């Protein structure tokens, strides 16, 4: 219960608002609506705070909000309360209210600004790609310039540490694909062809694609977050001022690592997927040797090689997108999060686009 008292009386056409007792945040919150209802529409207001015994910023906010420009004041008698009110007024007089943003819809200007922004980003991306290619080509004849220890660290982080996840997902995908296809295949007595269906799906398409999604989620985002943090902490600028090329130090080892590990991740996904499929086949009464025979008969080395080549391209794109997102991160506190999100989204989009291009290429080549 508030221990303060509040009254509103109209005397001689003038509204008298009288506060007494302790007027703190809780009292102000409790009286806010009541006092403002009473003061609404009153042309002349007298604010009597003479008997306010204590005041904090919340109470001062209530008094000031009721006063308007023309109010007559009875100041608090209590020196501390009077001081609080004076400080509050002093602070408020120094504050300029935020100007409201008057938004006007100008479609042509908006379209122009958007186009210019996209064009600028395109140029930045093209520049980054050019830098990356030139740096990588520069390193080729001088491999000692590559930071091998850094490359090994990234191979471990992006590759070997991702193997358990790939094995788990690969096995589950193999199991699911075999189970789902066994139902319609059984209607035609064609369960024996499940290894062919799952094998080709995995090696040509699903293995590389799912490994790519894992790489984008795990490694692409980690690249962006790490490089984004380095940029926010000005470590990238420090490298430049030391005469060290951030592309050679930071970008090339990461992109090389993601390109090299992707075929390995795809292979793990393929093998564990086939094992998952073999488990389902065993429950359907087909021994492992029958599954192996089917795979040997229908699965060509070209299927596997095509999938692995595609994987390397996926790895290149995901590593590139992750590094670009990180190094183009802004300076604010949200920059790192935005960079990581951009890396995952951009990586997956690049993955699907490349997959489509490979599908057309393989079709044209009759592969």
């Amino acid at each position, binding site marked *: 219960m508030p221990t303060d008292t509040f009254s509103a009386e109209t005397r001689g056409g003038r509204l008298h608002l009288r506060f007494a007792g302790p007027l703190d945040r809780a009292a102000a919150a409790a009286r806010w609506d009541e006092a403002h209802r009473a003061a609404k529409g009153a042309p002349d207001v007298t604010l009597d705070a003479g008997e306010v015994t204590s005041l904090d910023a919340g109470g001062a*906010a209530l008094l000031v909000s009721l006063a308007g420009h023309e109010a007559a004041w009875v100041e608090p008698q209590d020196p501390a309360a009077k001081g609080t009110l004076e400080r509050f007024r002093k602070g408020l007089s120094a504050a300029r209210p935020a100007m409201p943003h008057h938004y006007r819809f100008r479609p042509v200007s908006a379209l122009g600004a958007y186009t210019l922004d996209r064009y600028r980003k395109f140029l930045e991306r093209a520049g980054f790609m050019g830098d990356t290619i030139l740096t990588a080509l520069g390193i080729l004849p001088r491999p000692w310039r590559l930071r091998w220890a850094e490359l090994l660290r990234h191979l471990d982080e992006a590759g070997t540490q991702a193997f358990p996840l790939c094995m788990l997902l690969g096995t589950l995908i193999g199991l699911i694909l075999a189970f789902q296809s066994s139902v319609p295949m059984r209607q035609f007595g064609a369960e024996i062809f499940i290894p062919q269906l799952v094998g080709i799906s995995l090696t040509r398409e699903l293995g590389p694609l799912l490994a790519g999604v894992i790489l984008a989620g795990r490694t692409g985002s980690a690249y962006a977050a790490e490089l984004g943090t380095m940029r926010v902490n000005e470590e990238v600028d420090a490298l430049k001022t030391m005469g060290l090329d951030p592309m050679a130090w930071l970008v090339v080892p990461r992109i090389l690592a993601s390109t090299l590990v992707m075929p390995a991740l795809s292979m793990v996904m393929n093998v564990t997927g086939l094992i998952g499929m073999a488990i389902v086949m065993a429950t359907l009464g087909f021994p492992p040797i029958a599954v192996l025979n089917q795979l040997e008969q229908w699965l060509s080395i070209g299927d596997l090689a095509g999938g692995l080549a595609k994987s390397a391209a996926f790895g290149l794109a995901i590593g590139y997108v992750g590094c670009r997102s990180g190094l183009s991160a802004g300076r*604010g506190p949200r920059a790192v999060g935005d960079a990581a999100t951009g890396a995952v989204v951009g990586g997956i989009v690049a993955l699907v686009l490349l997959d489509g291009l490979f599908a057309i290429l393989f079709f044209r080549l009759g592969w």
Partner: protein
Amino acid sequence: MTEPAQTEGPTEGQTEAQKEAQTDTPPEAVIRARDVAMRFGRRTVFKDVTFDVRRGEIFVILGGSGCGKSTLLKLLIGLMPPINGEIAVLDEEWAKLEGEARRGLLRRIGVMWQSGALLGSLTLAENVELPIEAHSKLPQAARALVASAKLGLVGLGDALDRLPAEISGGMLKRAGIARAMALDPEILFLDEPSAGLDPITSAGLDQLILSLARETGTTFVVVTHELQSILAIGDRCIMLDKDAQGMIAEGDPKKLRDESEHPTVRAFFRREAM
């Protein structure tokens, strides 16, 4: 060994607490630390730290890098418990407080972090409104008024709708003080308020702290190793030392500078290598 330094006759520019401290009855202690010790793993940061902070004074915790100043601050504001000893803030012990009682004590203190620690996605005014929203039922219009007044008092009245990323380091610290003052706290803790600022901005911040202490009667606990600031604003101080693993001096900073016989205290105040 802790070396006490006695305070003598009033000087110009003193806070109310300093003047009162020289009268017969010193102001009540708002913080009491007794035999406080802190350890991380096997490394003892400090032990046997005992001091009082009196109402209305600007109390400085000083010392070299790594001596445990910021750790002591975290103990004082209840972010972590000491390994040993007792800390009472406004007659309450953090260790014995839970739930609403803890929130009640949190309402009575304010903390300004070294980096400002403002939320990057909110404007300065919204940052200041945040603690008011969390601890009161004031409507948005009232919160906005309070935020404007607080930011106006620290000289940021024209930056209400700016984001933290858009302002300078000195402005960030001022905004941090405005947010810490949002609930009219009885004690304001400031962690390295002058660190990383140019001398002019740093002096401006010192003036702001002094004027707030004088006008509001708020108790300030300031963690710093900036010599100029310590001498400009400090009513009393304690000095921590890494090698001694605890307090090595207590008293008026100017007296310690002029009269201390302790080699580390002398070296600190005279900016001498040891």
